[in-house]
């Protein structure tokens, strides 16, 4: 177990190092002065920055000071606004995380039980219905779905709002960046109303993002349940006369869930991409909307930092999910067999 942890830690560390190197290299590929491309200005006065911009430092030392600056939260300033990127990102990142977390939760809560239902009824009517409908859901382009939801639910029926996180009339002080949490801890009037309003704003973007993820989880769970039911140990458990309930909870459930966790890890990057698209369509003030704006405006420091941050989040989540799934299911470790 320790070896697995160390191996994953090394892997994550190396991947992150390569990402940081890439982001550092980008500043040299963009047109203009690399230091300005990197930090957005030449007027910062923090220690690592001064060393970074000094004429004497060679490129390797520069990289070292760049890493120091990153770790110190000195991420440079945006070309477009002249404001520190760290503040901007810390304000926007929770909005993106909030949307992603709710979307994944809904996809898991709905996808896995329905996947079990389909898997238990392998090649029966209910399974076929689930399979064909999830195929349709899976092939829906996310931007089209988002627009369709806006058109039908916001514009035609006028049930739910079509953009933003909260009606701009509410002035909720920034606390955690998670809008629902912020509303609950704030002491504004009409707290309950603000909460409802925020939930209303959440529904459509969350649905759009969770749509595809739901289909993926449903299909994966159904496949693995069907596979588990085919195995010898289920058959033997049955011949030993164990009650069906015990077989289901002791043997089917646990073994069928094991392959779902790595799939969640693989889905993270797709999910992040979809969240960014959805953010742009619903004017959700998150990192995706902000990053796309930065690309329009050739705001190199913002592009670099946003890219780095999003990839770091994806790498860390993916790696930890893989690591966890390997810890609870050692059979997935191909080196373990070799050592045996």
């Amino acid at each position, binding site marked *: 177990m320790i070896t697995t942890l160390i191996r994953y830690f090394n892997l994550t560390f190396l991947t992150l190092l390569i990402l940081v190197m890439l982001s550092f290299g980008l500043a040299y590929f963009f047109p203009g002065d690399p230091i300005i491309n990197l930090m957005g200005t030449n007027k910062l006065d923090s220690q690592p920055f001064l060393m970074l911009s000094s004429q004497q430092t060679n490129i390797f030392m520069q990289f070292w000071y760049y890493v120091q600056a990153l770790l110190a939260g000195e991420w440079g300033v945006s070309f477009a606004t002249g404001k520190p990127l760290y503040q901007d990102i810390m304000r926007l990142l929770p909005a993106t995380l909030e949307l992603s977390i709710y979307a994944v939760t809904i996809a898991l809560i709905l996808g896995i039980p329905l996947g079990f239902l389909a898997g*238990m009824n392998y090649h029966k009517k209910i399974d076929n219905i689930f399979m064909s409908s999830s195929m349709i859901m899976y092939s829906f382009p996310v931007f089209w779905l988002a627009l369709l939801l806006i058109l039908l639910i916001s514009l035609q029926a006028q049930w739910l709002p*079509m*953009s*933003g996180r909260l009606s*701009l009339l509410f002035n909720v002080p920034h606390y955690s960046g998670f809008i629902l949490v912020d509303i609950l801890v704030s002491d504004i009037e*009409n707290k309950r*109303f603000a909460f409802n309003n925020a939930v209303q704003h959440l529904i459509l973007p969350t649905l759009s993002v969770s749509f595809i993820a739901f289909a993926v989880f449903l299909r994966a769970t159904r496949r693995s349940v069907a596979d588990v039911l085919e195995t010898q140990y289920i058959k033997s458990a*049955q011949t030993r006369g164990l009650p069906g309930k015990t077989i289901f909870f002791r043997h089917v459930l646990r073994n069928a869930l094991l392959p779902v966790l790595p799939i969640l890890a693989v889905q993270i990057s797709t999910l992040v991409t979809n969240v960014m698209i959805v953010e742009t369509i619903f004017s959700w003030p998150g990192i995706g909307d902000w990053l796309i704006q930065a690309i329009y405006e050739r705001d190199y420091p913002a592009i670099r930092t946003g890219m780095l941050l999003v990839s770091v989040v994806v790498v860390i989540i993916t790696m930890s999910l893989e690591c966890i799934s390997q810890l609870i299911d050692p059979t997935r470790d191909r080196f373990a067999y070799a050592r045996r």
Partner: protein
Amino acid sequence: MSELANRLISFNYTARLRLLVIFFVAIFVALSTGCTDSSISGTAPAGVIYCSESNPSYFNPQLDTSSTTADVSAHQIYSRLLEFDPSTGRIKPGLASSWLVSDDGLTYTFQLRRNVKFHQTDYFTPSRNFNADDVIFSFQRWLNDDHPYHDVNDATYPYFSSLNLAHTIASIDRINGYRIEIKLFQRDSSFLANLATDFAVILSQQYGEYLMLTKQPERIDFYPIGTGPFRFDEYQKNQFIRLLPHLQYWKSVPLTEQLIYDITPSSSIRFAKLRTGECDSIAYPSQAEITIMQADPNIVVQEAPGLNVGFWAFNTAKPPFDQADVRRGLALAIDKNSILDAVYFNSASRARSLIPPSSWAYNNDIKEINYNPMRARELLDKAGIAKGFRMTIWAMPVVRAYNPDALRMAQLIKSYLAAVDIDATIVTYDWNTFRDKLNQGEHDSVLIGWSADNGDPDNFYRPLLSCDAIPSGTNRAMWCNPEFDALVNSAIKISNEDKRAILYAKANNMIAKEIPLLPIAHANRYQVKNAALQGFSINPYGSIRFEGVTKTVPLPTPSMTSSTVVVNDEVRP
């Protein structure tokens, strides 16, 4: 295999299905009660949301002529010495309660209003009221190259430099705390009108000093302090601007509890948000959308004749367009009425002269050119324009009120010209290149227009057709006629409107005779709003105003409440 599965599980298929259904129904019920129970929890906060089209460059219209900047700051955050009366266009008192013009027209004395308070915000607390020092500070900033704030934020003061105001004003002097005197080098009857435009705002001198002391002068244009009806609260780029009411505003008008600019660059999304009620009013509704909005009972479309003109200008510096007969021939060949129908969709009136009929300088007796292709060909033959003559029509690439679709207009004109055997080519570039190339005079003719900044007719004549306007890039006809220049220059030296009107009538007739440009249409201005918005009207002179705008909120609660804060300070002269 599935039979095996079925036998395995003790509870049968229907029971399982029922459990699942109950589970999901429970989730959905929980979700939907969470989000639709609005009746139990009171009301949303009051306020007005305006969906604007872009981010302002500054919060100070002195620095930028873009309407995005002016819409946020000019009438919300700041006040001016003088204001335009929206219905008549005449000048009325603003921060100056009265003024006096000397007999020679060179000295203007302004009496300033007392007890006018500047905004108190979390970044600045003023300790004194508005007085003459603030006026001098605000004017010297753009007037005086040596003023400490002149170069702050690399300001260029485009409006004032386009009118050359810095060379019109000889001095600005403080007579006492509430009286100032401005001396001019020469008479300028449009001077007062220029002080009433969006751009002649009054900043706080005390705030300027404070920022200099704390060594952050650049904040003056981003964290504004003014005397207007709203104070700045928060701005998130690409997201929103929040303004709060200035409770000690010097006018006694109702103000909404908060004014929010929801920055929404896409026109179709602004329209959608207006329909869903997420915006109370939107910037730049498109012509096609207006017809749909008119059918919506919750949306009110306001319409007013605009102070603008769309025209077809000939490059008179380039032969053969230097001959009046050629220009007349081309003008006769096109049918303005069908262009009006096809391009403006009944949202414009036919232009007979440079200035719209609502202006006091408009005269009815102008000889207008009527569609006559036969006569057109005769004139062109006489001027030696052979059949198959090739020329270019430049069509501007952007949408403006005065010309919503220049490309379509160019295509129509091209087909009319083909009927008199002239082969026209349509040329267009991106907007900045287009204007650069126009300034260099590369065009034969161009479809463009002009929107006035103030109610004075001089705002049309001098920028569009005077010799001085050729280098500054607003005289698209490249037309320089000393006789015309003399006429419009003498007109601004007279203050009597009737006498000026006679001179402008002469100028109109001169344009109708020489045809350096063919006026096509005066487009109407549109403003759309939610029906619940009260006191919101079109400001024909400049940018949008939210002073006095309130929203009645139809709520589940029985009474219709008006969400306003009434300013308790009375107006003191």
